[in-house]
């Protein structure tokens, strides 16, 4: 190749998990980010602690696309067990970099790529004495090698390493030495490599690299949650880790050491659900992070909270099901589960963040909405959003924010109330008032998941029962226009064809749509952000002749909800489904759309 591809390619690192490659990959990505060039990081890891193949993709994208490209241009093959697969995956014209301490002539079977062998292990074994650092430094050495290939800024590498190891200066030198090993070797043995380059830009100003779980954990802190209960499960654990971290940093009294929060690692998800129900019933803002299997277990309690009208905030960081499924692979497979979780007629409020920025905002939204509507609210994130490193606008906070604690009667309020009835719709907005235990003798009431009438009394009378559950349905519906509004992007030219999608599909959809637009295929695009659907969703579908519903599950779950909860006709909605467990890439979307559009034209 004569001309270099600048700031638009994907690097993939194939490694063995448990060898400490995560920090090397983070370093590599941050160098590029600090050079002002947008990056996307995707971690494709096994459900295992040590010894299985793991991959990390870094997409360098000057245009700032957020999905995967679907191509691999530079493969850093560090794991002999995945060599075969890694070799096949590399796009023509790409570079394969591997540790040729043990040469592998079979790499030369592909003539459409360049193979670069760097004796990483040998160099590190000579340079470092301690066995563990030999393994770790091998990873840092490939960062050096890539830096040489891509012309990365050495000063930035130095600065980053100094920042990373501020507390352990000795490690700075060790790491610098390892970087130099890889860097010098490539410069010496492969001079003039000029296929892919990173050129400094100024495109990452005001941006941060953050994952959705960290953002959501921070959102819970800013939203004023004081209590959280959870049971460890990939991929939601890091959400609670973040909440713990920031609570420790921000909510412990410097002198007394006393906490303004309480976090309980419950014995299982049932207990976690019960705990947040108890805390919310008692007036504390709280939440639980989990994933699909946890929601399944929590179902009985979710119905209880729905029927007794107790606020409940659940983060479902979706992973591939059914059952244990592929715990470290992503999907949007819990939409239907969460929409109607629990037995009996239940309908819940769902929020669909598309990136870490929205995870932060929607965490706060969820805390407000749950208390406003006195009901469970689900934030449906997924592994891709939750655990991958995204480039996002720096999070901002409005200091004038006041939490919406909903309709809670204080002791003062109760003075002007004749008699308090828990489930009476006094304002005609379908939302009754509640009281917090301990506030006032007048506020006492009995909470029961068994049949109750509008006064809160036990009932087995059909009419009394219906009155309450009908109000619950109306209350749920009334939330539709109070949720984050759908986001619409219009094509340059009027069109009767559209895409409707949600959550982490966004990056790939936007890019595919751009590419199709460049080829003269025009598509409007709506991204829904809440359920129940706003009227705008139905109107948008009505405007078009065909709407492609793109989502990451087998059963077209979003499409199913559109059919049951809007007047959209079946024939208009065309499912485009991706459910391999890997994050969606634009090529898949573009391919599926092109195919579907052509088929439709000739049909």
């Amino acid at each position, binding site marked *: 190749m004569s001309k270099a591809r600048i700031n638009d390619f994907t690097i993939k690192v194939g490694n063995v998990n448990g060898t400490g490659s995560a920090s090397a990959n983070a370093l590599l990505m941050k160098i590029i*980010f600090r050079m002002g060039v947008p990056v996307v990081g995707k971690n494709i890891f096994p459900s295992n602690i040590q010894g299985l193949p793991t991959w990390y993709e870094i997409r360098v994208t000057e245009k700032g696309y957020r999905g995967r490209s679907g191509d691999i241009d530079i493969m850093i093959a560090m794991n002999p067990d995945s060599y075969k697969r890694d070799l096949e995956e590399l796009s023509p014209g790409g570079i394969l970099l591997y540790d040729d301490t043990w040469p592998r002539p079979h790499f030369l079977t592909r003539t459409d790529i360049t193979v670069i062998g760097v004796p990483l292990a040998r160099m590190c074994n000579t340079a470092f004495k301690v066995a563990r650092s030999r393994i770790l430094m091998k990873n840092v050495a490939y960062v050096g090698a890539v830096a040489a290939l891509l012309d990365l800024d050495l000063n930035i590498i130095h600065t980053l390493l100094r920042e990373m190891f501020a507390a352990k200066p000795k490690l700075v030198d060790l790491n610098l030495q390892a970087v130099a090993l890889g860097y010098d070797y490539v410069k010496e043995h492969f001079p003039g490599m000029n296929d892919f380059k990173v050129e400094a830009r100024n495109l990452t100003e005001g941006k*941060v690299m*953050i994952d959705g779980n960290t953002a959501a954990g*921070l959102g819970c*802190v*800013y939203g*004023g949650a*004081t*209590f959280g*209960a959870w049971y460890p499960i990939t991929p939601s654990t890091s959400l609670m880790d973040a909440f713990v971290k*920031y609570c420790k940093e*921000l909510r412990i*009294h410097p002198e*007394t*050491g*006393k*906490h*303004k*929060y*309480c976090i*309980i690692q*419950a*014995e*299982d998800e*049932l*207990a976690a659900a*019960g*705990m947040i*129900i*108890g*805390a*919310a*019933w*008692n*007036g504390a803002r*709280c939440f639980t992070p989990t994933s699909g299997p946890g929601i399944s277990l929590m179902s*009985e309690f979710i119905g209880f909270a729905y029927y*007794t009208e107790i606020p409940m905030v659940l983060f479902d960081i979706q992973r591939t099901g059914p059952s244990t499924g592929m715990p470290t692979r992503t999907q949007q497979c819990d939409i239907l589960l969460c929409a109607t979780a629990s037995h009996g007629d239940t309908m819940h409020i769902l929020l669909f963040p598309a990136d870490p920025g929205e995870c932060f905002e929607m965490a706060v939204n969820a805390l407000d909405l749950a208390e406003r509507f006195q009901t469970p609210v689900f934030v449906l994130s997924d592994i891709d959003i939750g655990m991958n490193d995204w480039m996002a606008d*720096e999070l*901002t*906070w*409005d*200091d004038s924010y*006041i*939490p919406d604690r909903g309709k809670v009667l204080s002791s003062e309020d109760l003075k002007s109330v004749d008699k308090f009835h828990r489930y009476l719709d006094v304002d005609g907005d379908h939302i009754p008032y509640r*009281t*917090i*235990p*301990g506030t006032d*003798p007048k506020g*006492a*009431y*009995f*909470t*029961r998941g068994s049949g109750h*009438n509008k006064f809160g*009394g*036990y*009932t*087995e009378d059909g009419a009394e029962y219906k009155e309450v559950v009908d109000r619950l349905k109306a209350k749920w519906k009334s939330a539709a226009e109070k949720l984050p509004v759908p986001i619409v992007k219009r094509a340059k030219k009027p069109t009767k064809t559209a895409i409707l999608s949600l959550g982490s599909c966004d990056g790939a959809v936007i890019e595919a749509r751009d590419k199709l637009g460049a080829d003269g295929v025009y598509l409007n695009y709506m991204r829904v952000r809440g359920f129940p659907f706003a009227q705008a969703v139905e109107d948008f579908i009505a405007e078009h002749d065909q709407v492609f519903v793109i989502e990451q599950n087998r059963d077209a779950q979003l499409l199913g909800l559109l059919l049951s909860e809007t007047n959209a006709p079946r024939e208009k909605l065309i499912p485009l489904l991706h459910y391999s467990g890997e994050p969606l890439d634009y090529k898949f979307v573009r391919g599926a759309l092109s195919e579907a559009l052509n088929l439709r034209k000739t049909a």
Partner: protein
Amino acid sequence: MTSFVKPFIRRKNEPTNALGLVRADYDGAMSTLCAGCGHDAVTATMARAFFELSIEPHKAVKVSGIGCSSKTTAYFLRDSHGINTVHGRMPSVATGAIAANHELAYIGVSGDGDSLSIGLGQFVHAMRRNVNMLYVLENNGVYGLTKGQFSAAADIGSTAKKGAVNELPPIDPVSLALSVGATFVARGFSGDRDQLLPLIKAGLKHKGFGLIDVISPCVSFNDHKGSTKSYAHTYKYYNPAIHADYVPPSEQIKADYAAGEVMPVKLHDGGEIRLRKLENGYDPRDRAAAIGKLFESGQSQEIITGLLYINENDKDMHEMARMEDRPLNQIPYDELNPGAAKLKELQKGFR
């Protein structure tokens, strides 16, 4: 069917407590349990305990699971908040509620099915956490509400009403509680109010998890000959071994007992539990001794009752979580909001 409203009649010269309330102020809705059910007697005793302790009803919280026993939280303390949760899961709801506000008096009511089968996990974990509540387990050896199946508390050889014999070993909530860290462990009998009342009072005043396993016969499904949880069987093997009186802080001066006869245990509120009728050398502050005693009595079929173990020194959940004294649900938002500037600072590490 709607809930029955109990007639509320205030008689002249009725005794009042320190708040000026009468015993009937601590009543609830009319019970819908079978006439003679042990649970109703326990309900009345619980109401009396709150009355005698002069606890403001709105400062008390009742939590329960599902079962005839769990229904009873509706039948006392009408002016308290109550929550009838789902089957076997009351401990988690109580744990969350207590985390949000540790200042109220929490009483949990459950059954042997609710606590020892479906809810065994939550029951044990609430004890491990030493959640500050009194947990009353109304134990009748059967599932009353689902019509008489054996519960995990049924003894080997005990027969069901229709004749089936239980062959599985029972789970004894008292030995369980002793082994997982409950700090107040007692057994009572719905038929002995004199013993049960002070136990409930002491349990409410104890800081930490208090369990009272109350033998509470089910007259409809487990009171026949051959049942080891019937009234007749319980009376026959009943041993009220350790009597405990609760003495509030205000009555401390009237200490008029001879040394050796009574063992006083100081409580956190300044009150005291006085243990009487102790057999020689038995010290209910010794967990190993309590376990031994229980084992011994089990060998002889005897039903040992009273306060078997107390520990006022262990930290409760609130202390272990290092929460500040002010309840979480009363911390104003401005103390919780780190602010926009801080958010900017926190994100420096994300670049």
